[in-house]
């Protein structure tokens, strides 16, 4: 999902190319670019990890990334350029799992926006990971319950076909 001008939010099976992130999150009018890359690490909770499988509800995940990016723009400035890419599929140790690129007029907001986006991704994006260990076992990692973080949007948002009622309750 993207607006083809200043925001790119992509969930993909393709390898993340840092140059793509650099080029998408750039603007000649901006003096700062900040990049965060998350990678698969070889250890977690004392176990040796050989790979991580990422699963996602792609349409909702991309919509959530886009929502997070727009929240950042509302708070730190509408001129921001933002590129968020999240991998899915089975990744080996060292492969990039997520990239967040932010371009802004000055460095302070680019640092803050980058941190905001990655923290919100971990809390809200419908993405899951399964670790593959060196002993052959696998485990889906525990995470954050989405029902505690669901957001209510525009008051007059169209009701999705088949469902009704959209007052926030904040519970599962």
């Amino acid at each position: 999902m993207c607006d083809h001008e200043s925001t790119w939010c992509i969930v993909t099976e393709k390898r993340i190319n840092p140059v793509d992130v650099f080029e998408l999150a750039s603007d000649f009018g901006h003096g700062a670019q900040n990049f965060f890359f998350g990678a698969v690490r070889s250890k977690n909770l004392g176990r040796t990890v050989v790979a991580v499988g990422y699963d996602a509800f792609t349409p909702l995940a991309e919509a959530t990334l886009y929502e997070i990016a727009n929240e950042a723009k509302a708070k730190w400035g509408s001129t921001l350029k933002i590129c968020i890419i999240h991998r899915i599929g089975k990744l080996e140790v060292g492969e990039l799992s997520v990239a967040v690129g932010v371009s802004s007029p000055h460095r302070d907001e680019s640092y803050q926006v980058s941190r905001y986006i990655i923290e919100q991704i971990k809390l809200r994006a419908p993405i899951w990971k399964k670790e593959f260990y060196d002993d052959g076992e696998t485990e889906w990692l525990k995470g954050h319950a989405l029902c505690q973080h669901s957001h209510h949007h525009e008051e007059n948002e169209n009701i999705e076909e088949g469902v009704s009622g959209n007052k926030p309750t904040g519970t599962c």
Partner: protein
Amino acid sequence: MIEIQVRLFGAFRKYETDQALISLKIPELSSIEGVKNSIASHFKERFKDFSDEALIKDSAIADERRVLEANTLIERSCTLAILPPVCGG
């Protein structure tokens, strides 16, 4: 009764059969809790070792655009997803 499809993700993938979704018959105007109870019943009927009631309780129900609030009512046939706690990044 209406028929809904429910997509499975993450830790629920182990309950997939030939497709990554299940079909359920639920009462019209079921609540989100009702949908989750129906999903739990579906799994209990099909998997003797089913033990993920707590995971279902902690999961959200969503469509492709949003996580559905707890007071949402399911009015007609549609495709939903059950989303266990997330851990992207």
